[in-house]
């Protein structure tokens, strides 16, 4: 497993002498860019070198070195490895970095996240508000000197658990509120969420005057956080003119638990079950991404049989995700429950396989560094074969017969534009939504990981970028996943399922790694920094759902409010992953 990042074919240092240096820290890659030249260099990276897809923006707090760093990962939609560039700023006073929103609009929410959690100010960002934390919150929780309520120690395992582990409940030891910091002069009883005023201020103006001088009021409608169609606690503040959407801001963070901070307190292995809780429909995929990132750092190979087991599990996971997507899309459209329950039937059978293999239906925790936990028990591989060769193809066809030609559905979906290819790339969208616009970008092909390069499959692609294509591409992908599975279950070799000795604390050399996979929802990536200690120094998740909603406003402007539900539906968001 090579840890190469593309530095050979692009020589940024030669192109910008004096303002770019190669990152020479051991285990690190990419380029360090002068802060003042960041926008110029990013424009060149996009236009001259062709890295049009900026997937991740990560803030890192290097407290001992007293500096902060912002890491950008850029890729080409035509495929190939990525380009990583970083900007470093001193960690004193206001930490300021120029915003890249003009070059890559997809950084919008990610820059807001870095501001919210790390206090990195992106100058030039038009709407730099908190995004995951609430507006009255003080401090930036991902900074290394910030301590959460019920803080015990910087790193797990905690010393109080053994050998003198007399049980104490956290709330007894540390009653609620005592460790909670409020801004100065803050009274929670009297607090008026000024953030909401800021939110509505960031939407379009309330009153308009039409050419004839007629004053008209716009209405602000809050879809969510308690709304059956928003797939969890997602809220969108929408400005309406009549029924037409003229402004939209996503408001997220209701399910925020600071997964990154938890991850930095954990040891490497302890993070594995936590990744299950990101996109809880696809814990196998989440495990996959994290395992890849840490394996890159450790520079270890994965056992051959485990590679195939990983692919089998990840593809089964994709199939059930897409089936449920179809069911839930129909739910959003008002076809209550029948398609959803048909989808759940197949999902149950797939979850039975996960349960028999990994021990849990949804929180699989199946991957380990270098392999997987255990081999598939007897009979389970046969069950997978039964599903793959026999049941699932037939059921996918049945789903197609059931829905795809239904005139009511077709007239509802066809021609409703989601987004066009150019905007999708600009807004860093990945996954089926991007592929439905005609960009055949699939990480399994574009930047292969695991053993995906051994399988014969097509990247599902549709060209209209409307709702119908977004629906159909899911069925296409199920068929392609079945193709991969057919080959995988045939080719799977015998042998050990882990290349490493089981250890409860792995040794991870210092350095950084970016592990990315094609999760059913788009690019899921983990950026992990190790300083050689048992716990990661930085652990950042780049979730597909979160980045994909950056374009939500763009998608919805000018459409009718009734279409919002479906437009959000095709993004296939999961709040566990979005809010982290």
């Amino acid at each position: 497993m090579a840890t190469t990042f593309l530095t050979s074919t692009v020589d940024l240092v030669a192109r910008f002498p004096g303002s770019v240096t190669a990152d020479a820290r051991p285990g690190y890659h990419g380029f360090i860019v002068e802060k003042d030249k960041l926008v110029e260099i990013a424009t060149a990276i996009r236009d001259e070198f062709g890295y049009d897809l900026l997937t991740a923006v990560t803030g890192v707090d290097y407290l001992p070195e007293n500096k902060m760093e912002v890491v950008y990962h850029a890729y080409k939609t035509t495929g190939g490895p990525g380009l990583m560039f970083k900007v470093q700023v001193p960690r004193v006073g206001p930490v300021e970095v120029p915003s890249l929103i003009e070059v890559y609009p997809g950084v919008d929410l990610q820059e807001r996240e870095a501001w919210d959690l790390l206090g990195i100010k992106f100058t030039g960002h038009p709407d730099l508000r908190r995004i995951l934390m609430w507006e009255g919150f003080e401090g930036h929780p991902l900074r290394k000197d910030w301590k959460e309520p019920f803080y015990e120690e910087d790193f797990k395992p905690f010393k109080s658990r053994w050998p003198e582990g007399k049980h104490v409940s956290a709330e007894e030891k540390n009653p609620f509120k005592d460790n909670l910091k409020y801004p100065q002069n803050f009274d929670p009883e009297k607090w008026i969420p000024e953030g909401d005023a800021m939110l509505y201020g960031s939407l379009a103006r309330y009153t308009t005057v039409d050419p004839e001088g007629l004053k008209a009021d716009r209405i602000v409608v809050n879809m969510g956080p308690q709304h059956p169609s928003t797939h969890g606690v997602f809220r969108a503040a929408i400005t309406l003119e009549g029924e037409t959407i003229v402004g939209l801001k996503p408001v997220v963070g209701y399910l925020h638990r600071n997964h990154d901070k938890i991850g930095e307190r954990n040891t490497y292995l302890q993070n594995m079950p936590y990744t299950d809780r990101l996109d809880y429909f696809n814990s196998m995929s989440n495990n996959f991404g994290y395992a890849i990132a840490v394996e890159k750092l450790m520079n270890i190979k994965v056992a051959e049989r485990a590679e195939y087991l990983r692919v089998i599990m990840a593809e089964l996971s994709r199939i059930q995700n897409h089936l449920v997507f179809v069911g839930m899309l129909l739910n959003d459209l008002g076809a209550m429950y029948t398609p959803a329950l048909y989808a759940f039937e197949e999902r149950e059978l797939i979850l039975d396989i996960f349960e028999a293999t990994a021990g849990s239906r949804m929180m699989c925790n199946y991957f380990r560094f270098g392999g997987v936990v255990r081999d598939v028990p007897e009979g389970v591989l046969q069950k997978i074969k039964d599903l793959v060769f026999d049941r699932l193809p037939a059921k996918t066809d049945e789903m197609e017969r059931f829905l795809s030609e239904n005139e009511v559905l077709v007239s509802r979906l066809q021609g409703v534009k989601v987004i066009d290819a150019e905007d999708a790339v600009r807004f860093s969208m990945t996954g089926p939504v991007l592929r439905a616009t005609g960009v055949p970008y699939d990480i399994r092909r574009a930047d292969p990981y695991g053993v995906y390069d051994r399988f014969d499959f097509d990247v599902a692609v549709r060209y209209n970028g409307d709702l119908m294509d977004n629906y159909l591409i899911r069925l296409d992908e199920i068929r392609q996943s079945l193709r991969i599975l057919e080959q995988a279950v045939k080719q799977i070799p015998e042998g050990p399922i882990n290349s490493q000795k089981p250890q409860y604390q792995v040794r991870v050399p210092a350095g950084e790694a970016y592990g990315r996979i094609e999760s059913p929802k788009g690019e899921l990536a983990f950026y992990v920094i190790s300083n050689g200690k048992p716990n990661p120094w930085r652990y950042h998740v780049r979730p597909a759902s979160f980045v994909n909603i950056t374009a939500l406003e763009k998608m919805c402007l000018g459409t009718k409010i009734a279409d919002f539900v479906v437009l959000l539906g095709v993004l296939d968001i999961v709040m566990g992953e979005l809010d982290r």
Partner: protein
Amino acid sequence: MYGLGILKGLRVTWDRFWSTYTEDIAWLARGKKRYFNEEGVKARAHKDTRGIFTVQYPEEKLIIPEEFRYVPFLVYDEAADGKKEVRCTSCGICAKVCPPQCIWIVRTNDPATGRPVPVPADFYIDADICMNCGLCAEYCPFDAIIMDHDFEIASYHRNVFNMEHLLKPASYYKNIRPLNYQRNEDERKAKEAAKAAKAEAAN
């Protein structure tokens, strides 16, 4: 023709609707009960399942596979005189590997020498915090902590299990996880045999 697609789709629901009844009749004709017994539940989880799919919990329960994991328990072996021999040596690996840090162990110290004795004085699992990940059982070198199958632990109070509550006999372990139990036993026997062979060679 407009409406053909709808009719095609309705055909699917129509078939699905009747398949429940045709299945029921087929089971009746074979003189078997499709509901409220294990065979019926198994058939509903089979790849050829048709018709109604739901399992009517709590009257019916899904068949739990061996690897299913829920809040762990501690294993004790029953000695010949009926004494409980706790397998745990309070080495603390499970407490160290536990991601939400819900395992608390008090180690026993010999009152005379003050040195640790390989038996836990007390052992707590905060089941409300436990995330059922199974890492403790996976990394326990003594097969002393095992993931349970008993998932019906809802209660009106906090579930902080102490050692008394956590201890279950090895026979229970064997009952819920026969294959794993056998594997552990084989490994242990192989280890003992190797040890004996080594001792013999030394003599």
